[in-house]
């Protein structure tokens, strides 16, 4: 077996609130390979965002380990670019273009002329060339998200981490953005770790889906969803997979008659 790009083993995540010690996930294992569209799916509060934060290096596991390219993750780094749900992730004092080029300048990963070129290409890829010199407060929600995605992708990270990136968008924009993400993936074949609470989104976006149980998050299943996208929305396979995930998450109420 080839070694995975990202490897999480027995990851237990805990964080402190002023009064409690909360266990967000309990002994979660998964591994993401190069070119995966890996989706972490779970009900709200199952610790999936916390898990992504741990991969991002913003918190360290209480137990277990997360490794990227065989290296233990200890701190945040530009090899794991994060795209957040909130629009606040863009710097309001920089134009779209300046936002995209900022990480490349800070990390000095590319020479300055190459960075300029990459920023322009990335902005063109998400269709915002006309808006390159506009400040974020003048952009719509979907556009801001496109800038955030362009910013993350221009840096060519080892893995793209997306924390419910489309959850704050309206349904029509969300659908467009999902399609755009998939077509970008078709061109560039990057690796993405995507967190969502929507079963439909998980099946459309994901090539592999990790299903987490409700709080505290534990692995319920890891499923294959490659080959299913918007075009398969009405197809029986899509419905079957959706039903199966639903049953995994919430139990089959008819068969079990509630929780035991």
């Amino acid at each position: 077996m080839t070694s995975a790009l990202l490897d999480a083993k027995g990851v237990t995540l805990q964080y402190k609130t002023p009064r409690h010690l909360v266990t967000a996930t309990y002994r979660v294992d998964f591994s993401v390979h190069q070119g995966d569209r890996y989706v972490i799916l779970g009900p709200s509060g199952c610790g999936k965002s916390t898990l992504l934060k741990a991969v991002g290096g913003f918190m360290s596991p209480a137990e277990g380990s997360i490794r990227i390219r065989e290296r233990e993750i200890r701190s945040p780094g530009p090899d794991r670019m994060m795209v957040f749900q909130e629009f606040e992730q863009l710097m309001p004092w920089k134009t779209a273009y300046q936002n995209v080029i900022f990480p490349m300048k800070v990390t000095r990963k590319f020479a300055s002329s190459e960075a300029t070129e990459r920023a322009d290409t990335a902005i063109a890829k998400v269709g915002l060339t006309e808006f390159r010199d506009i400040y974020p407060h003048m952009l719509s929600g979907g556009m801001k998200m496109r800038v955030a995605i362009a910013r993350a992708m221009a840096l060519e990270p080892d893995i793209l981490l997306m924390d419910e990136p489309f959850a704050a968008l309206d349904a029509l924009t969300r659908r467009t953005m999902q399609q755009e993400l998939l077509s970008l993936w078709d061109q560039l074949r990057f690796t993405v770790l995507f967190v969502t609470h929507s079963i439909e989104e998980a099946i459309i976006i994901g090539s592999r889906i990790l299903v987490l149980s409700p709080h505290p998050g534990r692995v319920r299943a890891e499923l294959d969803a490659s080959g299913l996208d918007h075009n398969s929305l009405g197809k029986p396979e899509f419905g079957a997979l959706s039903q199966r995930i639903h049953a995994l998450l919430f139990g089959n109420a008819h068969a079990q008659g509630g929780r035991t």
Partner: protein
Amino acid sequence: MNPQQTPPHRPELERELAETAVIGDVERPLTLHERIASNDAVQRLTILVALIVVWEIYARWLNNSLLFPTFSETVRTFGKDIANGVLIDRTFTSLRTLAIGYAFGLAFAAVFTTMAVASGVGTRILSTLTAMFNPLPAIALLPLALIWFGLGTPSLVFVIIHSVLWAVALNTLSGFRSVPETLRMSGRNVGLTGARYVGLILIPAAFPSILAGLKIGWAFAWRTLVAAELVFGVSARSGGIGWYIFEARNDLDTATVFSGLLTVILIGLAVESVIFRAIEARTVTLWGMQR
């Protein structure tokens, strides 16, 4: 179900889109009149003129230049003292002291807030110091300053630093605290730490609060300076605006007192509406962080 409550059946419809060319320009530039009416500077100027007119009318009606000189008399005195260089000299002396005090105040504020951002202990030190010293009027420290630094600029600088430091530090710290978590994370995500993190993320993100602090600090400094000059008067031979006012009061020359006050007001207005406004237009307004 009550059948009377179901809405009536209506036919569906689909249309060809209407031609929009007939509307003419979708966007049109505002006329000169519309632009003048909505111009900020014009409106402010109108308010000023109205205030001046009220002043002039009241002073003429009172007809007692010892108590309340007219606007025209004040302006005449003002013009005379500008022309003979007294007022310019006084203003320059004040502004120089002010600039030194303000600059030192900002530098100390920067040191304190950096300390506060760097560690929890720093935060507690700063918030305790601020709680203790911010309510303390700078003038109350003046006697002490005179004992420590003697009669002269150092004492003035000391009280100005005191009045600038806490206001600016308090605002900057609260600005840093209110930077959204997502923005912080996206900064740390690209590997920013330490001074670069503060300089590239925290300071611009907290800029509206920092600017507010700078404005408050400026006003406090100006106030403190004029008051301090009034209290202890002149050092060496060059007094500031406060001294100019004090001297005129001793001579019962009310028009000159007014002209000194007018200078204080004019400088305040100029700094607020020229310097700070220009900074705002280029930063927080442009970035949509403040309306």
